C-alpha cells in the first residue's frame, strides 16, 4: 500500500537520531528526496555532538565551543536537506545510554503522538554502531510500538551493508533501497555544512563532480516490522 499525500494531508516523517551529522552521513539523500516530494520532516538530535573528536582541520573548536558550532552546522544541513523541524533533546553526547529509559521513551512517544508520522526512522538497537545510536534506537523503537496506530518504523543503515542483509539475520525483502542519485548535490551541501566533521575528509572538498562520485547511488533501510504487510521495497511510504 502506498500512502498518497495531497495538499491537505502532507506525508510526514520523523527521524530520531543521536548526533548532528547522522542524518547527512547515513541517509542525507533520502531526506533530500522526500523534501522534494513535499514530505514534512522532523529531526530529533538527542545530543549536540559536543563530545566529538574532530575539531576542524586545522582545529578551530574546543570542547566548550563545540555544542553551539555543531548545532549551527546541523541547522545548515537541515536547510540543505529540506528538514523543516529540528528538535534537540539536550542530552550530553556519549551519555544517551545512561538516560532514564522510560523518560526518554516517553518524550519520543509524545512526539510520535503529536506529529503522527507516516514514517519513523531511527537506529537499530543492536547494529547502531555507537552506544548513543543503539540507545536512541532502542528508546525510539519502544516508543513507536507503544504509540503507533499507523505508520511504519525503519532502521537506518550504513553504506551498502544491506546489500547482504543475511549477515544481520534479515532477508532481502526486509530491506528498502532508495535511489538517491538525483539528490546527491543536496547531500554534498549538507556534508559541507558539517564542516568541523568533514574537513578531515579531503574528498568532500574536491570539485563537486569528483566529490559527488564518492556517494553510492542508494541508501538502505531495514523494516522495523518484518511481519508487516509487504510494501514497495523502493519507497519508505
Amino acid at each position, binding site marked *: 500500500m502506498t500512502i498518497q499525500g495531497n495538499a491537505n494531508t502532507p506525508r510526514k516523517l520523523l527521524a530520531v537520531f543521536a548526533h548532528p551529522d547522522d542524518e547527512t552521513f547515513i541517509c542525507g539523500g533520502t531526506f533530500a528526496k522526500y523534501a522534494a516530494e513535499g514530505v514534512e520532516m522532523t529531526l530529533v538530535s538527542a545530543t549536540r555532538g559536543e*563530545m566529538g573528536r574532530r575539531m576542524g582541520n586545522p582545529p578551530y573548536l574546543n570542547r566548550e565551543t563545540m555544542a553551539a558550532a555543531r548545532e549551527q552546522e546541523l541547522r545548515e544541513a537541515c536547510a540543505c536537506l529540506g528538514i523543516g523541524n529540528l528538535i534537540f533533546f539536550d542530552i550530553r553526547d556519549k551519555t544517551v545510554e545512561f538516560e532514564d529509559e522510560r523518560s526518554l521513551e516517553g518524550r519520543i512517544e509524545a512526539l510520535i503522538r503529536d506529529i503522527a508520522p507516516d514514517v519513523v526512522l531511527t537506529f537499530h538497537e543492536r547494529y547502531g554502531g555507537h552506544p548513543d545510536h543503539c540507545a536512541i534506537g532502542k528508546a525510539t523503537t519502544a516508543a513507536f510500538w507503544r504509540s503507533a496506530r499507523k505508520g511504519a518504523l525503519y532502521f537506518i543503515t550504513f553504506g551498502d551493508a544491506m546489500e547482504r542483509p543475511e549477515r544481520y539475520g534479515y532477508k532481502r525483502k526486509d530491506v528498502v533501497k532508495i535511489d538517491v542519485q538525483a539528490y546527491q548535490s543536496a547531500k554534498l551541501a549538507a556534508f559541507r555544512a558539517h564542516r568541523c566533521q568533514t574537513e578531515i575528509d579531503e574528498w568532500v572538498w574536491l570539485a563537486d563532480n569528483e566529490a559527488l562520485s564518492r556517494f553510492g547511488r542508494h541508501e538502505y533501510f531495514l523494516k522495523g516490522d518484518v511481519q508487516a504487510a509487504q510494501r514497495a521495497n523502493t519507497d519508505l511510504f
Partner: protein
Amino acid sequence: MLPINKPQAEAELRKFVGADAYIHSEATSFVFVRNFKVKVTHAFIAGESSSYRAALRFDGHGWLRMEALTHYEVDEFGRLLLAGYDDRGRMNVALHLGKEPFPE
C-alpha cells in the same frame, strides 16, 4: 586556541593555585570527567617542544597529570582551556579549569 607558549600557559594555570576550581578532563577516546571540584595547591607545565604535560596537585593529597597538550586559551568566561590535537585536528586530550561549573 593557540599553540602552547609554556611560560604564558603556566602563568595562566597558576592563577588557579589557592582557589577552588571546577575541572573538565578527558582523554577523548576513553574517558571524560566533568565538573569535579578541587582546591588547587600546585600547578605545573612541563615539556620543551610542541607537546606539553600539565599537572595539578589538589586538596592536599591529589594529583592530576595529562600529556600531549598542544593548544590553550583563556576564553571569554575566564576559563583556562588546554587541549591536545593531532596533526589533522582531532582532539586527543583536554584539560579545562573554571571558577564556575561547566555546562552539564
